[in-house]
């Protein structure tokens, strides 16, 4: 075990899988000599050469389209989108092409591409370097959507994503790239897709959070414990297919639930999680499912701290839920 950052864990997963499997490629803007704008691919071009670590022209639709073609022809491409905010030029290739090849060809063609995209705020990036667009992709049939919050999960889930038979949109919480440090198994480490994690056990309330909101949830849970409320923090890790069984079991024990995410509230993934909880746990629920989210505004620059949920806002939602 080594103690590494989430960014280092991403890098190690890429490096080790490229060594193991010659079909794995990395492509995107600045992934080669620059090593990526966040340095996730640092040094890979020296190890594997420019044919496998491909600095592409600046065109996200072209990058994902090229990756699809490579995957159709037997490769395992990993795309880096510099910021999740820049994924939208590739939206058609992801939604109408990547996600649909298996279905529209009845399994004759599949495109196992991993699209990595640093997402979320907290880095003073304004609207175009801060968004959390996971709901768009969860809504799209045919995609697997992952967002780890710990270095070990980042390595284990990215490795699983690179071996998945289905396309994976892999969101990386950029606010945690260098702040999240943790023990990561050396060598091959796999975390199964579709299995959540109890980040903190508790008996009184279930708090579901992912990505950079997990440490916020843990901080709020810590403060709640000082008020005598034992909060269970569930980190789904894979957003879709969601580990609904883990959430259901937790809420059936606690009887209370709050969902927390950075993305805007309306039609955010929290709405789906809340709906699933009320469908499955209604007899055990002691009150409505709470939501703590970003606001239904564009992501602000100056008022970023006001926009992002913080432990105080989460604590208020926990207190409100405990009153019911």
């Amino acid at each position: 075990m080594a103690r590494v950052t989430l960014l280092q864990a991403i890098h190690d997963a890429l490096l080790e899988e490229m060594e193991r499997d010659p079909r794995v490629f990395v492509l995107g803007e600045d992934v080669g000599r620059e090593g990526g704008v966040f340095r996730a691919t640092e040094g890979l071009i020296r190890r594997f050469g420019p044919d496998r670590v491909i600095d592409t022209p600046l065109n996200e639709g072209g990058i994902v389209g090229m990756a699809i073609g490579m995957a159709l022809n037997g490769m395992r491409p990993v795309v880096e989108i510099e910021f999740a905010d820049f994924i939208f030029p590739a939206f058609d290739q992801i939604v109408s092409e990547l996600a649909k090849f298996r279905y529209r060809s009845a399994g004759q063609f599949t495109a196992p591409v991993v699209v990595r995209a640093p997402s979320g705020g907290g880095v003073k990036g304004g609207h175009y370097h801060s968004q959390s667009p996971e709901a768009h992709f969860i809504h799209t049939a045919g995609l697997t959507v992952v967002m780890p919050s710990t270095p070990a999960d980042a390595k284990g889930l990215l490795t699983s994503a690179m071996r998945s038979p289905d396309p994976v949109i892999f969101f990386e919480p950029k606010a945690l790239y260098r702040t999240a440090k943790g023990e990561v198994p050396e060598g091959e480490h796999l975390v199964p897709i579709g299995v959540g994690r109890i980040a903190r056990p508790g008996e009184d309330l279930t708090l579901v959070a992912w990505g950079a909101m997990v440490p916020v949830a843990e901080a709020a849970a810590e403060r709640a414990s000082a008020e005598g409320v034992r909060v269970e923090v569930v980190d789904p890790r894979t957003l879709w297919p969601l580990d609904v069984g883990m959430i259901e079991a937790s809420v059936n024990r606690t009887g209370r639930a709050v969902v927390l995410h950075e993305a805007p509230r309306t039609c955010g993934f929290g709405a789906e999680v809340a709906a699933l909880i009320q469908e499955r746990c209604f007899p055990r629920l002691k009150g409505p499912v709470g939501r703590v989210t970003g606001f239904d505004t564009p992501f602000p620059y100056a008022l970023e701290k006001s926009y992002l949920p913080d432990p105080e806002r989460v604590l208020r939602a926990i207190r409100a839920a405990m009153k019911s």
Partner: protein
Amino acid sequence: MTDPVVISAIRTDGSVDPASDPGLTGPELLLLYEKMVLLRSLDEKGVALQRSGRIGFYIPSAGQEACPVGAGYALQEGDWIFPSYRDHGMALMRGSSLATLVAQLYGNSADATRGRQMPNHWCDRSISLVSVSSPVATQLPQAVGASYAAMLRGEPVAAIVSFGDGGTSTGEFHAGMNFAGVFRTPTVFFCENNRYAISVPVSRQTASTSLAVKAEAYGFPGIRVDGNDVLAVHKVVRDAMARARGGGGPALIEALTYRVGPHSTSDDPTLYRTEEEVAEWRKKDPILRFASFLKIRGVLNDALEAEATAVAREAVRQTVAAVEAAPPVPPESLFEDVYEEIPWNLAEQRAAFLSGRS
């Protein structure tokens, strides 16, 4: 910049321009003719089936047959095809069965793609013909990726990607052409300029004097060919594919042709073009033109011509009858092939649907 000259091969006197003569044998010439006739017969039947309500939609390629047939005959085992929805002729040339194509129109249990898409969205893995989608030109960067993978593995194959004049206006055209130029992939961009993107004429797609000239900006050759001349089309595609397979990089081919029918069975071309214009192009019909050529050469005569048409129509008729008899796709297949394994949400939805609870 100057527009490339338009290459043609077939001359009205029955001779072939030596510079663009593909040098095909008599049986090969006859094969091309028969496949164009078969394609025309399939299209006539497709439109008739839609008009009589037996299939939901159809996209004919009438008037353009020389493009997919000439190009398709230039492809080899291992080459990739990223077609548009009007390129079923390429599938026929590479050995897709008529039954495969007709079954896709019906989308019933005979269809290898299980009725997942509307008619003319072909797919045949056995000939590396990649599943067609409706959004225009999305297949261009994909073709670059597939050919890049083949190039890195050192395989002597290339990809052909076809699209229409409207496709050249898309961002994906730029992305695909640009990536191919930068990575020098074995990719042949085959643009069938049939003059209209549904109703919008090519003059509204570009102010450029040709489409082929655009290749110059991407650093590789642009070629213009008479798209109603099956021999010329075959020759330029064969040369471009051979050059690509040999490491010479990509090429753009603009085939000048004309869609004499509607864009699809939902289109009314009288809204945007004159009968006179269509009549002029009917005189340049690629099948009639090739037939006259073959007759002068002694490869075809009136009896053989009539027989080819009769054989093609009968083959289509028999295939339609067989495919039409197949049962519909089973309802539970709705939930399959979304992922490799069915996730919990689809399993729940399937169970509810099949039990009548949803």
